[in-house]
């Protein structure tokens, strides 16, 4: 070990001698001497961008901002952004600072930041993973909220049949307890969200309206689709796993070739990633200027993967450094043969031509490199400019890392969502789609096969629960037992109307106050309770998402490199405000009270009844008069 450190130290000294000194302006603006020294060392170790330094500066800037020294903070932020090619946070903070000071520059920083996020493998996969997870949690949460709301809405109907069925069998415990006991029993079983959802879907399907069924089906399909694809979501896991092969291979573009990194990479022993491992090791050796060792690694890499362009390029670089320009050009040419739009290869050939005094060829090659976007490479690799390198080295591109992650993820047996959701779902998430498919089929069958007498409904007049067994539809309306008995045997339609109205109003004031509070369990629930189903679903989805963000203090899966400082206040304020707003909005969704002249009995009854009454009366009168005649004669 000590001999290794000596060699590294020697290498550092060598590199110091060879490399042009760092550009004074950039690094000298770091005022902490230890940090400056560290950054210089990182550069010497070949770090393409100074992530650690950048993050330290960013944190300092945040602390300065808290103290209100935004002028200094802005300088730090700019420096932080300049030193790292893929760290977006300083740019976003800069945008915020500029916006607060009403500078139009903020837009440039914002776009720049988004650009950085979008081109970086780590942030790409992190955002993708978190978005998927947020979607899953929102969909599952919204499904549960909607199902619970629907259960509350239709509970009187379910309870009615339970009571009716039970009342025949026993007197105690009271029939009104049975529904509650069943619910408590189910809760005691702690079946997990998955099975509870399944039970609720099957139980509520026959009762729900078409719109409600549609909303439930939409969410179920959404969850099932993600569950079906959870094997593919697995390819995003390396993004959050620092110990994954992808994570370790990606280190090469994040930091210099230090002992720790090299050791990590040497530990990879999966033969499927042998070529990539060799490439990364070669690059590390190249950075430490162990050119012979680097050449060996690169040769092994290209022998394992014939189309491995970055390895050819860096192999060319090794030859270039060794002064073997023809071999170097051969290496670069094989890169161009694989990918004719490779800017690095063109640039490096151009630089090699300069060494070979072929200036015309060189200039055309460098021009080609320019059109192919060598500038972009310089932007995302600040070290290149700071160190003033002649030739540029290749790393694993974002696409390359994605393909590595894909291969690694597909081979991985674990499924990240299944693991994270396990304690709540109590069911393997990656098999949930099967369960949900079976559920939908069962729900459809149950909905079709359920006996007619079990189909409870709401009384047309007072909207209390009723069923074909106890309701009466004599009047053309489906009336519950109580409503039917209030108008039983009456003849005057007006009186019936008045009696029904009286009962209706009595029941609506009785249940109205209760239901107004009953649905305030979660934003979106009142909308569903009052029939605005689609709005309810959207509100519920958004709110579960917001709640999730609030509880997790941002995304669920976090970048382990990001050092969490104090959470900005808006993170605590925005989601609750949003939730409160949607709560108020959904609580306002109420049914209007009925109009004064509302009549419930069918219009033809108003005529029918009177007619029949007169006819009946006529008959009776005839009979009576006959009897009277008889009595008269007897007197």
């Amino acid at each position, binding site marked *: 070990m000590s001999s290794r450190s000596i060699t590294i130290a020697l290498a550092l000294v060598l590199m110091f001698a060879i490399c042009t000194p760092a550009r004074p302006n950039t690094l000298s603006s770091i005022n902490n001497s230890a940090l400056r020294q560290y950054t210089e060392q990182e550069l010497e170790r070949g770090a393409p961008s100074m992530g650690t330094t950048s993050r330290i500066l960013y944190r300092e800037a945040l602390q300065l901002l808290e103290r209100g020294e935004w002028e200094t903070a802005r300088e730090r932020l700019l420096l932080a952004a300049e030193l790292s090619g893929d760290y977006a946070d300083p740019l976003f903070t800069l945008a915020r600072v500029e916006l607060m000071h009403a500078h139009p520059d903020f837009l440039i920083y914002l776009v720049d930041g988004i650009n950085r996020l979008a081109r970086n493998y780590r942030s790409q996969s992190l955002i993708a993973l978190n978005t998927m997870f947020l979607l899953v949690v929102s969909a599952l949460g919204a499904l549960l909220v909607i199902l619970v709301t629907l259960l509350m809405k239709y509970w009187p109907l379910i309870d009615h049949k339970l009571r009716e069925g039970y009342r025949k069998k026993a007197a105690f415990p009271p029939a009104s307890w049975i529904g509650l*006991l069943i619910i408590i029993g189910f809760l*005691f079983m702690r079946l997990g969200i998955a099975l509870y959802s399944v039970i609720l879907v099957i139980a509520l399907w026959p009762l729900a309206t078409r719109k409600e069924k549609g909303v439930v089906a939409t969410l179920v399909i959404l969850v099932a689709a993600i569950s079906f694809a959870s094997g593919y979501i697995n390819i995003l896991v390396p993004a959050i796993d620092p110990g994954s092969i992808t994570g370790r291979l990606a280190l090469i573009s994040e930091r210099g070739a230090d002992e720790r990194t090299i050791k990590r990479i040497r530990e990879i022993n999966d033969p499927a990633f042998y070529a990539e491992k060799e490439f990364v090791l070669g690059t590390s050796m190249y950075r430490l200027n162990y050119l012979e060792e680097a050449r060996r690694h690169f040769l092994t890499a290209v022998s394992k993967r014939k189309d491995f362009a970055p390895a050819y390029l860096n192999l060319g670089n090794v030859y270039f450094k060794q002064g073997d320009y023809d071999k170097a050009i051969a290496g670069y040419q094989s890169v161009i043969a694989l990918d004719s739009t490779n800017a690095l290869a063109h640039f490096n050939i151009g630089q090699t031509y300069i060494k070979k005094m072929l200036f015309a060829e060189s200039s055309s090659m460098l021009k080609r490199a320019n059109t192919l976007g060598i500038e972009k490479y310089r932007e995302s690799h600040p070290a290149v400019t700071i160190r003033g390198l002649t030739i540029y080295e290749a790393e694993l591109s974002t696409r390359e890392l994605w393909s590595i992650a894909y291969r690694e993820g597909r081979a991985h047996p674990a499924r990240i969502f299944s693991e994270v959701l396990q304690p*709540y779902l109590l069911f393997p998430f990656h098999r949930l789609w099967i369960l949900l498919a079976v559920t939908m089929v069962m729900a459809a069958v149950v909905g079709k096969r359920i006996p007619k007498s079990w189909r409870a409904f709401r009384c047309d007049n007072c909207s209390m629960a009723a069923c074909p067994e106890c309701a009466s539809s004599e009047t053309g309306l489906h009336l519950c037992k109580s409503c039917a008995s209030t108008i039983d045997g009456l003849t005057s339609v007006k009186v019936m109307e008045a009696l029904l109205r009286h009962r209706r109003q009595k029941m609506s004031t009785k249940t109205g106050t209760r239901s107004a509070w009953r649905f305030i369990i979660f934003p979106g629930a009142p909308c569903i309770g009052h029939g605005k189903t689609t709005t309810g679903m959207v509100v519920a989805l958004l709110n579960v998402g917001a709640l999730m963000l609030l509880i997790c203090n941002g995304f669920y899966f976090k970048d382990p490199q990001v*050092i969490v400082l104090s959470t900005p206040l808006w993170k605590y304020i925005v989601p609750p405000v949003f939730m409160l707003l949607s709560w108020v909005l959904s609580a306002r969704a109420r049914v209007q009270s009925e109009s004064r002249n509302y009549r419930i009995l069918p219009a033809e009854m108003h005529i029918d009844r009177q007619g029949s009454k007169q006819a009946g009366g006529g008959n009776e009168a005839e009979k009576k008069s006959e009897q009277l005649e008889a009595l008269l004669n007897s007197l």
Partner: protein
Amino acid sequence: MALEGNVKDFGLSEIFQLISLQKKSGMLSVTGEKPIVVFFKNGSVISTRDRRDRSRDPLKDYLLRYGFIDSDEMKRIERIQTETNLDLTDILLSEKYFSEDELKTIFTEQIQETVQDVLSWPRSYYKFIIGTQVLRGITHYAAMQVEGLLMESMRRIDEFAELQRIFPSEKMVLKRQAMPKSKPPRLESHEEFIYDLLEQVMTLEKLISHARMPRFCTYEALKNLLEKELLQIIDEPKPIEWEESTTVSEAKKQRKRRFLPTVAAVFLLIACFAAGEYGVPYVLPPGWSARFAKAGQVEATGTGNLFSADLQELRLRQLEATVEESLEAYLAIKGSYPFTLESLAVREFIDKGTIARIHQNDIRYRIDENGTSYMLIRNRTR
């Protein structure tokens, strides 16, 4: 000649019609819920007041019942009555309680109500004594045609049943609603009177006793007000249910009957809990229960099921990465690695929670003498 019989055989209304058709005079006494007499003169009803029975004067009851005269006044009238031996109607007129027209209306309404009462009895015994001599000394203010009287009574009996459904209890509290400003509904005089009375919130009982009209008319006016949305029934006290007093042995039996189902319900709940505790994890795939996901146990099963173990490994790796990152930051600023991880927390490179998690997971930190390299050791042998 007398006509008598049970109302069960013939409806009383037929008897009334018979007397009316034959234009008879006489006295019809009906004994049902209480005894009542109806005097006929040439087939018309003239009175229901029996002079021979002073204690039971339907007119007096009527006046008291509907608040025409309060009980103090009535006592004064009664005193006059015993002193002068005058008829009640004479006193009312001479003391100017009512004008003759008013008395006539009251008199007819009272007859109407009495007849209505009589007709509504399900069974009764009747006896008709023909002759004008029974009419001697009867003061009367109206001669009511039987036809109209019967029709009105029948209507009222019919409709009263319906009205009682709307107003099932006289304990109901009534409140009037404000007259709508636009297009106020037209009110009959009865309705207007009731509406005015209801300026105060009151029970139906109280309203009836102040309404100065027969019970039926009050009900009818209320119904019309309800239909015109001018009336609100505030509170409908529940009919008091008289609980049957159960004997001791019966109570014992009932307690016994309640005991078994309660035990069964509690047992079922416990069974549900047990099923959740032991059954559910058993049914689920291995390692899938929340309660069995503790780290040690998962590794102990060693079935190659990596789910929970994998997630834990992932979290450990992330934790280590966080620590390494902050160690690197410390090195960058201080020039060497810290001696303990705690100094990271002191310098705010890392938060206290992370340090706690490091200790929780038993991750050790070792640094070499120069402070230029370190090791994070996972202690897995706990």
